[in-house]
């Protein structure tokens, strides 16, 4: 397992919306695939949706790139289905999310300046 620390976060920028969404949805905790779908939908007020095909393909790629890592499932969890892999964001993943957020922030700033969206208040 393990990321590839030789790479810089900027190498992976820009991220696909799916990967960016997964990184944010995972947060500091961790979750399994189906949970990520739910978290993303909940935390964006159901504006963002990720479909299973894209989700698992993205997760596979993110594991390869060291953005997330698989870990043991918390004990006592029952899925009611097949055994599920749990994922946690790595430090590298966090750095990449941060780089992508900064990139988007600069774009967002332009939109705010042009009064396309109202500016964030506090």
């Amino acid at each position: 397992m393990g990321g590839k620390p030789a790479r810089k976060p900027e190498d992976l920028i820009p991220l696909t919306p799916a990967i960016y969404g997964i990184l944010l949805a995972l947060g500091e905790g961790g979750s399994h695939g189906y949970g990520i779908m739910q978290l993303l939908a909940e935390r964006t007020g159901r504006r963002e949706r990720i479909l299973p095909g894209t989700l698992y393909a993205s997760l596979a790629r993110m594991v390869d790139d060291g953005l997330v890592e698989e870990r043991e499932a918390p004990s006592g969890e029952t899925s009611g289905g097949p055994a599920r892999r749990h994922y946690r964001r790595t430090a590298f993943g966090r750095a990449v999310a941060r780089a992508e957020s900064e990139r988007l922030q600069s774009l967002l700033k332009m939109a705010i300046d042009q009064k396309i969206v109202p500016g964030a208040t506090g």
Partner: protein
Amino acid sequence: MVARASAACFRLLLRLYPPAFRARYGGEMLHALERERSRVARERGAWSGLRYSLAACIDLMRSGLDERFRDRGRRERVLLSGILLDVRYALRSLRRAPVFSAIAIACLSVGIAVNGAAFSVLDALLLRDLPGVERQKELSSILLSHETRWGRTDPGQLSPLEWELFRDHMPVFTRSGVVGSSAVALRLSGGALAVRADFVSGDFFAMLGTRPAAGRLLTAGDDAPGAPLVVVISHDLWTREYQQRADAVGRSLRIGDVVFTIVGVAPAGFVGIYAGELTADPRHGAPWVILPLSAAALVRPQSRSASTAAALDDNWLVLVGRRGEDVTEPEVEAAARIVTTAMAAAYPAHRRNTVAEARSATTATSGQIIAGFAFAMAIPLLIMLIVCANLANQLLARAVYRSREIALRLSLGVSRARLLRLLLVESTLLAAAASVVGYVLARVLIDALRAFALVLPFTIPMDVRVVLFMILVAFATSLAFGLVPSLRATRLDLAQSIRAGQSSGGANGTRLRAALVVTQVAASVALLALSGVFVRGAQRSRMSEDEANVDRVLSVGVDLDMLGYEATAGLAFQAMALDRLRSLPGVEAVAQSAVTPDGVIRPARVALPRDAADHERYLEVATVGGDWFALRNTRPLMGRLFTEAEARRGTPVAVVDNAAAQRLWPEQSAVGQTLQVGEVDNAIAITVIGIVPTVRDRHGHQDNGVVIVPASGAYEPRAYFYLRTRGNAADLREAARDIIRDLDPRLPGADVVTLGESLDRLGATVALLATGVGAMGTIALLLAALGLSAVLSFIVEQRRYEIGVRVALGARTPEVTWLVMRESLRLTVIGVILGTLVAGTVARIMRGILFGLPPIDPVAFAGSTAVILLVATLSSAGPAWRAANVDPSSTLKSV
């Protein structure tokens, strides 16, 4: 259904991912997909669930292909993304024409489903190995027929004496055995039940290659004289009576009055080599118990026959053998004919002219049912033909309408190859969607067939080959009619097409489309007319009885053979039963006869004094006791009827029906004539005292000739008691059953039905066919109406200019309307004529196979023609209305 379909789609699309990926994530993905889909469906309704499934499928397709081609070269990825783009575009364009897409998918999927289901059933009955039978293709059965002066009899089963000759003299078989079926009284915890029992010779199970579900099966040792009495029970009985407990083996089971020990359980769905009549009647379905042939004499009175002649007449065994390596059926037949020669030597008086015939032992049910099915197969195929004609029509219309779009794309520089690929993808998507829906529908249809029509003890697996074939047909159709016109369209004169808005399909195109409509109309006329024939066939069996009578007469069938009653005890039982039934409230008349409630009368030899010694003639001879004539409301045409007292005394008199009178004494009156009834050595001379109207048999035939004679004290163990009541006969059902149970609680529940119910039961198969064919005919008609309407709209569109000119020149609405209607009528009438010819031919062929079908019926044909004309008129109303409302000024200006 949606859940099953989308799960199937998900599973299929997962195959796009590379195997390693699938192994790692597949299970989890399926789970997530299913869970999310059901959540969406639950929270936001079925429609949202469906849309979610669709979106998820496209996502799977895209990311799956992405994953698979991740490490491939750039060229492949570009091609792939191009195809994905095409898929997206095709989906969009199909969504933009929702009516077209929905109709096309619906039509195709119905065609696929009907064929898939029908051929799956046929496959399960005819081609697959039956449950518990290994390599059924290697099995042959041998049937015997006899040469008589009227020709060869139908090939039939063997008697035990004949089996003894065959047993050791068929070296072409590696193993052989016989099986005979008989109804027995099975004594269960809930009371006695009449069920089918199979009696098998020692090697039978070994020959089939059956493995037991529990315990062991029967072996040669069990069939030896003096062996302990053992029985193998069916898997269903094991489940029902013993909850599949292992300790069922070793228990005792009472059959008739004999106690057997259960030694094993047959595998689930085991039917031997004969699935039975596909009804819920336990006497005629799959076997409940399987006994050694040597036990037959204990529970089956016919197997105790003392004389050689009687034993030879007891033809109840089916001989089955497994052919040795490289042995062909003709070789089996040749070997069997050597045995029949020996048979002629052993029984010169009875088996001089016996002919053996070898057949493959692969038909699971009676020949009639198979023949019915084989013919019914023509209908799904006809439906598929209509479906394809319809789809072709719609695609042709669409191609013409789309020529403008295509021309535009070409002029924008899209390559022809790219355009064709796009159209190909569109056709594929249509066929694919229809395949998924069709597959699910086929499953539903098979389940419905099993639930309502065919009681089969085993499951019917989907015949994947047929479904694949139908998908291929669907694909080919959508390709041929979606692509070919488009191909032509890509060679259009661009400038003209863009300007004109639509090109004319040309005279050829219109002719092709008209031909397609005629085909559809013809096929639906044929189907509707055939269903009419079936409906009337089902009614016919009721019409043959006095309508008022059938619901007032109750029949109570009691088979005393099940308990092996001796003649004296049996006669006493019957006399007591008749007396007690007579005392039921509301009973006007009672009678007793071997004639079954559905009118089966056993034939017997009938001779006239002037006949030569070896002349043989068989007529249906009904022996009756009690107030038979009063019960049946029969009045004499000539002479008189015999009274109940005469019947009881056994006076040697007879009443013949008109058909018999005509056959036996064509030139003189039958009354006063004498005839002999019975085999040569024990014939009885009887005087005819009256003639009654011709008795129609259960299939409506009325030329058999029936002789009615008094029961005269002869013991007939399988008797039916008939009660005629003042009210509704069905009300006495329970009371009648109780009387029989009181008389002998060991007897299985009596078979109590009103004459009406019995006739309905008889017509049930035909009625089912009528419903099925009628439903298909209606589908076909709707499809034809759609096709007709589409063609007419197209013609109106094409002739818009001409119509505009006519209107401008003063043509009035009726004239314009007539212009369109004339076209519609022309196509319809041609279709009706062709369809009538087809239906007439099919009905004639079917009459030879499904007995009891009435001849081609003018009412059925007139009815279906009227329906078609009505539908044609309705479906041309829209286009005619549009034609009548053509605005001449705008039409003329636009050109």
